[in-house]
C-alpha cells in the first residue's frame, strides 16, 4: 500500500490540488501549465487553508466541483462562487494571490460574518510569489527588481500580448 492509493489520504490531497488548480484556471484566465509552472499552486492552497476558518477552503472547492460541466462554466463560477457572500471574497483573494503574490485582508463584513485569523493581513506570500505574479506576465514585462530582460531590451516595442487561451473553459468543456 502506498500513498498513491486511489482511496488514501494522498489521493484526497491530490483531488483537492487538482480542484484548486482547475478553479484557479477559471478565475485567472491562465492555463494550468502556466499556473503549475510557477510552482506555487500547492503553496497557495495551503495559504487558503491556513487563513480561512476550518472547512472554508473545502467549501470553496466543493462548490467548484459541483459546477455543471459544459460550455458556460465561467457564468456558473460567477453566479455560484463569485456572487456568493462567503465564497466570493475568498475566490477574489485567490485571484489577487495569483496575480500579485499577495494575500489581501478579507473585507470587514466577511471577517465579522465568518471569522478572523491573525494571518489575514495584507502580506506578500513569499519572494517567489512576488516574482511569479501573473500581473507581470499580463503587462508583457517582468517583476520589478527580478527576471531582468537585459540591456537595451526596453528600447524595443513590447511584444503583442499572447491571446488568452480559453483557460479552464476549454480544458473542461
Amino acid at each position, binding site marked *: 500500500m502506498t500513498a498513491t492509493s486511489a482511496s488514501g489520504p494522498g489521493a484526497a490531497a491530490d483531488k483537492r490540488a487538482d480542484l484548486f488548480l482547475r478553479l484557479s484556471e*477559471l*478565475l*485567472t*484566465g*491562465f492555463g494550468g501549465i502556466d499556473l503549475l509552472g510557477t510552482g506555487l499552486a500547492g503553496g497557495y492552497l495551503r495559504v487558503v487553508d491556513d487563513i480561512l476558518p476550518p472547512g472554508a477552503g473545502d467549501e470553496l472547492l466543493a462548490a467548484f466541483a459541483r459546477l455543471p460541466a459544459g460550455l458556460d462554466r*465561467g457564468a456558473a*463560477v*460567477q453566479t455560484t462562487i*463569485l456572487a456568493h457572500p462567503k465564497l466570493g471574497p475568498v*475566490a*477574489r483573494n485567490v*485571484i*489577487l494571490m495569483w*496575480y*500579485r503574490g*499577495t494575500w*489581501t485582508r478579507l473585507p470587514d463584513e466577511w471577517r465579522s460574518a465568518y471569522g478572523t485569523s491573525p494571518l489575514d493581513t*495584507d*502580506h*506578500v506570500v*513569499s*519572494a517567489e510569489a*512576488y*516574482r511569479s505574479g*501573473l*500581473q*507581470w506576465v*499580463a*503587462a*508583457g*514585462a*517582468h517583476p*520589478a*527588481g*527580478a527576471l*531582468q*530582460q*537585459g*540591456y*537595451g*531590451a*526596453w*528600447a*524595443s*516595442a*513590447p511584444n503583442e*500580448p499572447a491571446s*488568452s487561451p*480559453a*483557460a*479552464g*473553459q476549454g480544458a473542461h468543456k
Partner: protein
Amino acid sequence: MSDQAVHDQSWDVVIVGAGVCGALLAKQLTRAGLRVLILEAGPDTASPFDGYLGHLEHFYTAASKGIGAPWPPAVSAPQPDTADLRTGGGYFVQNGPDKHASSYSRLLGGSTLHWLGVSLRMLPEDFELRSRYGRGQDWPLDYADLESYYERAEWELGVSADVADQAHHGIEFRQGYEYPMRRVPLSYSDQVLADAVDGMLVTVGDEQVPLKVRSYPAARNSIPRDGYRPAGAVDRRSDGQVVTRYTGQRCAGNTSCTPICPVEAKYHAGKSLEQADRRYLEVTAQAVASKIHVDPVSGMVQGIEYQRYTDRTSPRHTVHTVRARAYVLAAHAVENAKLMLMSGLGGENSLVGKGLIDHPALYGWGLAPVPVGAYRGPLSTAGIEDLRGGPFRAEHAAFRFDIGNDGWRATTGAPDTTVTDAVRRQGLFGTELRDHLQSVLPRQVRVSIAVEQLRSEKNSVSIDARYLDPLGNPRPVISYRIDDYTLAGMATAAEVCRQVLRRAGVEDHTNAADGSWFPEVRYDGQVFHYHGMGHFAGTHVMGRHARESVVDAGQRSWEHRNLYLVGGGSFPTMGTSNPTLTMAALTLRTAELMIAGLA
C-alpha cells in the same frame, strides 16, 4: 579595528558618513596618502554581496514597496520614512506648516543605495539666480569653476550620456569631452512620447518654448567608452576579503533603480570606497557621531565623540572619541545640521540648519492610446528639460519632467492596484480579467515634475530636547513651507503636463483620489498633491562672507577652520537638477583643497 585602536591611531581626517560625499572624499584623500577614518552611523550590511541580496529579499517580501522597503534602519540610527507622513509619527518631527515629504537612509552607502541615478549638471544660470532674475541667491562659484569637477564626478560615478543631448541652457562641455559611457537607450515609451511631443510649443511667462523628450545622464552602467571599466557589484566580506563579482557591469533593465538595483549596475557609494587606497582607510560602521568638541578660543575642532553599538536591534552602546587633523561632516544635509546643533555649534549668525529645501514634485498619469511597454527598463530614461531655465524664473519656479518607465507604480501602486481594482471593484475574472490587464498595463504612462524651491530661513532643521531618538540624540525638527514662488511654478507645471499628455493622446487619469496618498498644498484655488524627491539641501549654506553663510566656497566652516561640511547642505540654490552630481563635484573640489592643505 577596535574602538581603542581607533582612538589610539593618529588620523589625518575623520569623516562622518559613508554616503557619496564621504566615500568620494575618502577615495581622494587616501590616494594622496592621507590616513582616513570614516564613522558611519548605520550598519554595513550591503557590502557583502550576500547581505545585499538580503536587502533585495526584503524588497520582494515587503507589502509596501516604498523607497525604504529594502533598507530597514538600526534602532540606534533611525531614518525618516515617507510612510510616516500620514500618521505624523517617525523620526522627523514635522513642525509644518507643510510636510517635508522626503526620506534618506542611514547605512554604509547612504541614499545612493536607493537613488534613481539621475546625474544632471546644474545650469549656468542656476548659480546666478539673484543676478539674473532677482530671485534666491548667487553661489560663490559659477559653472565655469565647477565644469572640470563635473567631468571628474561623471567619471567617478560612472555616468552614461551623450554630450550632444546635454548641451542646452548654456551648459558647455570641454572640446572633445565624452561621458565615460554611452547614453542609456531611450525606452520605447520615451520614443512614442517623443514622436508626439517633440517640437510642441508651450507658453511659459512671455515665452513660447519648444519641448523635446531628451535622454538624461544616468549613473547606470551602459556601454563604456575609451577603455572605461564599469564598476559592478561590490562583495567585501565581514573578514575584509574582497571577492570579484562579474555582476552589474551593464544595466539589465530591472525596472527597480529605486528602491534597489538588484545587480548593482547603478552607482552607489560602496563602489567608491572599494576604489580608495584601503591601506590608509578605516571604516567604522554602527558608530553614531554625537558631539563635536571645539576649542572655545580658537574654534578648532578637537575631536568627535561617537556612540558605538553592536546590536542593531538595541540602543545599548559605548561612547568613544577620535581625533584628527581635519574633520568632515558628510552625513547628509539634515544630519550635518543636527550634529552641529547638538554640539552647540549653531554659528554666530545662527544659519546652521536654516534654509532647508527639496524638490516638491507633482505626478501626472494616464493611458496611452497604444501599448508603450510600461514596466520595462530603468525606472526612467528621459526627461523634458526645456523649462528648467528662462526669464520666467523672475516670476515663478522652474521645473523638470521625468518620464517614467514604471507604469503607474509610483503614482498609484500599480500594477497591484490596477489588478485589485479590476477584481474587487469591476468584478472581473478569468479571460476577461486577463485581457483587461493586458490591454491596460502596457499603456500606463506617468511623469513626475520636480519643481524648484528657494531657500528661506523659515524652512529649517532644528532640535528640541523633548524629541529624542533611542540613543538619546535629538530627532530633527523640520519646519517647512512651500512658498508662492514654488506654488506658481507648480501651477504652470501642472498645466504644461496636461498639454503634454493631451498632445500625446494620453487619456489623463491624474486624480489624487485614485493615487497613493501624498500631502497637499493649495494655491489660487487649486490643490496640488506633492511628493518629495529626497533632494535635501541648503542647511549649511556656502557663501562669500562669514556673516551670510556657514561654509566658504570650499565647504570649509568659517568658524571652525579644520572642519568641512560637505554635500547638498552647502547649496545656496538647487535649480532643478537632482543634486548628487553637483554634490560629488563640490566634494572633489573640496578634496583637492584638503589635500593641498594637509599633504
